[in-house]
């Protein structure tokens, strides 16, 4: 997700307003970081510094939290975020083969973004729709009961 300068300014204004509203809550750091990640799609060093300054904590603390939790990203994500569920129910029904097929089709490893910036591949934790196992999610759309042969056709819709 690349932002125009105007969008960036709007996002920073929204983030500053959110910080202003919540900075006196008890333990506000994570919710502010979550808001920032929602707005920008990731936490740049610039954003982390801004949050640290506003809350009067060292940047290391913000960075420490950002790297502790899987959902905070320090890099921008691709246009489409693709997650293959690797929860147990999906795993025993063959999600590893689905993930391998995705990696092969897109020529990109899980945890990375394709060179053209189209897809970010993630091996996600359990998504909780185990009745549809094995499951893959692209953006918000869920694809269930997959076999590796289904992968190419689904990816074509987004390429």
């Amino acid at each position: 997700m690349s932002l125009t300068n105007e969008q960036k300014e709007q996002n920073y204004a929204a983030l500053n307003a959110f910080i202003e509203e919540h900075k006196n809550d008890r333990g506000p750091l994570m919710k502010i970081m979550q808001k920032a990640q929602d707005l920008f799609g990731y936490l740049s060093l610039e954003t982390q510094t801004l949050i640290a300054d506003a809350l009067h904590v060292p940047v290391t603390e913000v960075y420490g939290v950002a790297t502790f939790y899987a959902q905070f990203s320090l890099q921008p994500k691709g246009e489409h975020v693709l997650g293959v569920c690797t929860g147990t129910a999906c795993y025993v029904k063959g999600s590893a083969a689905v993930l391998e097929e995705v990696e092969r089709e897109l020529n990109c490893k899980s945890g990375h973004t394709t060179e053209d910036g189209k897809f970010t591949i993630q091996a996600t934790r359990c998504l909780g729709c185990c009745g549809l196992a094995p499951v893959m999610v692209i953006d918000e759309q869920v694809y269930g009961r997959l076999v590796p042969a289904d992968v190419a056709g689904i990816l074509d819709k987004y390429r």
Partner: protein
Amino acid sequence: MYRSHVMVCGGTGCTSSRSLEIIQRFEELIAANGLSDEVKVVRTGCFGLCERGPIVVIYPEGAFYARITPEDVDRIVSEHLLKGRVVKDLIYHENDDKPTNTSLNDIGFYKKQHRIALRNCGMIDPENIDEYIAYDGYKALGKCLTELTREEVIDIVKKSGLRGRGGAGFPTGMKWEFGYKSVSDQKYVVCNGDEGDPGAFMDRSVLEGDPHSVLEAMAIAGYAVGASQGYIYVRAEYPIAVKRLEIAIGQAREYGLLGKNIFGTDFSFDIEIRLGAGAFVCGEETALLTSIEGRRGEPRPRPPFPAVKGVFGKPTVLNNVETYANIPVIINKGYEWFSQMGTEKCKGTKVFALGGKIVNTGLVEVPMGTTVREIIYDIGGGIPNGKKFKAAQTGGPSGGCIPASCLDTPIDYESLIAIGSMMGSGGLIVMDEDNCMVDIAKFFLEFTADESCGKCTPCRVGTRRMLEILERITNGEGRDGDIEKLEQLAKNIKATALCGLGQTAPNPVLSTLRYFRDEYEAHIYEKRCPAGHCKKLARVTIDPEKCIGCSLCSKVCPVGAISGKVKSPFVIDQSKCIKCGACMEKCPRGAISKK
């Protein structure tokens, strides 16, 4: 009054398979047919039979429609809602030969269940507080605040025998009593909704299907221990649950059921949601409390226990979602009623999320003491595709496997520990003969090694070393002595890790070693995977005797590894084959096998 209610599941599973479009279509057609005053469409929580989703149940008949598509809705409206004729071919049948079930109560999946924590899931609109109130909602809170003393509330919970449903099984009433006895100017009540066990989704279903029951119970806990503030910590992966909780909290505040002077008493209590950000260790109580404070969710040694020193350094009572969901019913119906169910040491029911190689994937709630066999075969419908049962895994990455020889074990906290597994939060994943147990152990170790927070060495380094050995074994490079090394590491990690995550991380290895040691030995000494799962040890081959040369396999092969001439036997190029098994599924003659 409406003459019919159309209940459509709005849980995560059914929403993923287009249930929102189904609701929209029902609403359009009901309006177009002028039935808006007669028929009401309700988006409910989870019905439990996720395998058959999306699910639509129409009352008063209780007609149970399964795997409905938005296109099917037209027929249901024109036949069932307009003419009063149940659309038989869309009704769920357990047995294709005998399409006899028409209503929910006739279905074997529900017969042995006893829904307490899930009582309202599928029955009410979770976004409407009035529907919760109509089912006795907030009555228990009213009773506690106006009729019972704090000590009496704790006494009822203690006598009910309710134990923590998060997995450890600590008596809830005793926990509340500790919180009550702690002296402080401020105390907190926390709900653990960080359901991190892969394949477990009961807490999510309660939060999605009946959020008010958790809010009500937290307020009751707040009254009992003397807290005025509650926090619900929910995984960020559960957007629908978070949204419904937000709505529920808003409605409860509006009705004066949260906030200042509840029921006109001097008791005030409010609840705030805190979102997790993807860290399994935060399901551990001390880590969760640290995360609520907005910090790295690292656990700390206990004591002091949270009831003495919890969130923001104040006494905190922390229970799991399912535990809370039981509380209002216990208060309303009495501890005697509750303690009749279950076994001597474990009262009440337990919700399990059935998954993996089982016919009825979904959510079931059974009395404690029900056997694993009853859950898997009578409720779960057994193993699909005529395969053989191999093991059931409970307790997720902290638990272990239950082999066929232990299927008749009655489920409770102690009996599961005795057979080397554990209750855990309630994930129950079934595996068949195609699953390799060494690989499953590796899968869980990958998970715990990845989720280890890194604070203590036994967990950070020890799980990594175990994982490396398991990787070697599944890659066909296992050595003599590996099993003994695994056992030694497991013993040391269990004895020395700081928190529950590390102390239980070796369990999947120990339990598979206990029951499936021969599979480990086959990998190490014979370089063979008995289940045919481990790719480095497997070869996919076509039996030239059986092959009819139809070429289907070569068309489905994603890597072009199969070649041959039509009407003569095909062959697989082993250097290209990725052993995905797609050809095996396509072959009409069963000529392809993986060994």
